[in-house]
């Protein structure tokens, strides 16, 4: 039968109308509301411009000192601090200082934004199975949909620049922190929670004295994942106008500049390794109390 040979798809004309309908509706929407939405994100943009300038214009020895101190505060490990200093010296030596600072700026802002949005969302999800059932598929889509697909509406609405880039990074980097906050809170020992209840804790006391501290190792694993995924988005964000190492990688791809590509790629790797080691060491230090022995 004919129907089995070829899929009974919509007619070419119908399909065209459908697509056009959606496209026009959305471009109308963005024409009407684009400015308002852009206005809404303006403070964020000003902050990002300011922060990026701050990092780029600060004297490089001061910046390296700050990175070293942050690495020490996080990891309390001399090798990690030395590794951090050497990495940034090499990056600077190879002329990638400003691009690296721009990348650090967007990664930091994206991470804080994801933490600020993701942890409350994760808490909400842990409170109700219904909320979890709604949010989980949304997170699945955010993580699996090709980034280029959501770049289209973002660019249509906000054009090219830092804010759309930041949004693209956050869409990709947000899910792990939400998921792991939710998981961490749900895994909190039932008996400890019962004890909190039996002593008359209210919701806030339960959340901040028991659930969050006990979920912290998982939440921290989420923060770590979020940073890693944000770094992974650096090149794609560069496509819509985010300055930084990603721009050079794009340039290297389109012009077949092998050395440029490798250098900037390795700089991204160096950032990833530093962020990862420092945040993991910090996360581990948070759970010192779990070990026996007396060396606290």
């Amino acid at each position, binding site marked *: 039968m004919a129907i089995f040979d070829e899929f009974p798809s919509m007619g070419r004309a119908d399909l065209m109308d459908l697509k056009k309908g959606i496209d026009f509706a959305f471009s109308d929407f963005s024409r009407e509301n684009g400015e308002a939405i852009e206005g809404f994100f303006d403070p964020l943009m000003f902050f990002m411009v300011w922060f990026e300038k701050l990092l780029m214009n600060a004297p490089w020895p001061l910046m390296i000192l700050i990175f070293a101190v942050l690495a020490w505060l996080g990891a309390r490990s001399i090798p990690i601090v030395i590794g951090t200093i050497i990495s940034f010296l090499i990056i600077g030596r190879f002329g990638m200082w400003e691009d690296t600072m721009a990348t650090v700026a967007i990664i930091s802002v994206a991470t804080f934004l994801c933490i600020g949005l993701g942890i409350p969302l994760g808490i909400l999800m842990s409170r109700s199975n219904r909320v979890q059932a709604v949010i989980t598929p949304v997170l699945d889509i955010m993580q699996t949909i090709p980034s280029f697909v959501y770049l289209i509406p973002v660019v249509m609405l906000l054009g090219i620049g830092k804010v759309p880039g930041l949004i693209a990074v956050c869409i990709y980097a947000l899910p792990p922190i939400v998921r792991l906050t939710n998981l961490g809170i749900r895994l909190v020992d039932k008996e400890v929670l019962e*004890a909190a209840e039996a*002593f008359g804790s209210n919701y806030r006391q339960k959340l901040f004295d028991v659930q969050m501290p006990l979920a912290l190792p998982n939440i921290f694993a989420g923060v770590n994942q979020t940073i890693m995924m944000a770094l992974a988005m650096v090149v794609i964000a560069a496509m819509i106008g985010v300055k930084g190492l990603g721009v050079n990688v794009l340039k290297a791809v389109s012009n077949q500049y092998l050395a440029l590509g490798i250098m900037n790629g390795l700089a991204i790797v160096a950032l990833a390794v530093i962020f990862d080691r420092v945040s993991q060491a910090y996360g581990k230090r948070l759970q010192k*109390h779990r070990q026996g022995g007396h060396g*606290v």
Partner: protein
Amino acid sequence: MSDVKVSIKNLYKIFGPNGKDMVQKVEDGASKASLQAKYQHVLGLSNVNIDIPARRIQVIMGLSGSGKSTLIRHLNRLIEPTSGQILVDGEDVLAMSDKELREFRRNKMSMVFQKFALLPHRTVMDNVCYGLKIKGIEKVEMKERSQKWIDRVGLSGFEHNYPAQLSGGMQQRVGLARALATDAEILLMDEAFSALDPLIRKDMQEILLDLQEELHKTIIFITHDLDEALHIGDNIVILRDGAVIQQGSPQEIVLDPADDYVRDFIKDINRARVLDVSSVMKPGSTESGLELASNLVLELAMPAMVKADVTSANVMRDSEVIGMVTLADMIGGIAIPESHEGEQVTYR
């Protein structure tokens, strides 16, 4: 009997979507098994009525699955009952609003847990402070009161350790100090010593009895261990399949078990350590010259008689003779009863 502190009336708990409708079926005589098979509902508690006296240790005992942990969680409403009433000092716990309930839990009733349930990220001091912090006690007083209880349970010097650095027995002392620190009149202990090894458990029982001698709290103690129940309990309730089978003093339970289930329970215990002289005495007096206090356990009374080389003794209370016992009565008391009617009963 002293005044009633906690009164549980017609309490039912049936797990399942239509618990309320099932109460009638249980009242009409449906058993736990038939409820499960026919209606897929689990009978947790079935018509429980207990009056718990103030300032005593009330033990609730039963094997796992008998509903004892479910029952204790009803007292502070960690679990909502299907139907029934719980009165504490005459106040209906089930009628309390969320806010009243929180105040009630903060001030009236504290709890010790089987697996300690300490906050792993807080030090011993901060764990003991926990209940006080929730109550909103200011810092200096909080530390002071906590320190007192830390010292009292013998943990001085461990204030700044984390729970994971302590042994099980020490962790449960922290749990006990945390519960005592709130000065609640009622202490719920959910198999508090069951996770400890036997020697430590004995230790903890002594600590609890010591404390009780001084504090006179109303303690509701859950256990599956009859030796523990007989040792620390002023009163014992025995639960099976969510229903109360017998309640009474340790002596009453040992001397007059309500059914074969209880009889089976008490078969292996050391009766001479539980029964006292008054439980086997009879009216009258003797000229043997030996006087025994009425609350002396047989384990100590019998050697005393042998040592004095007599076979009977007067039983004394407040330096008055209230009856007499013979060595034969005592031995009769220790002997495991066959059954009420004197017929051979097969256990198991």
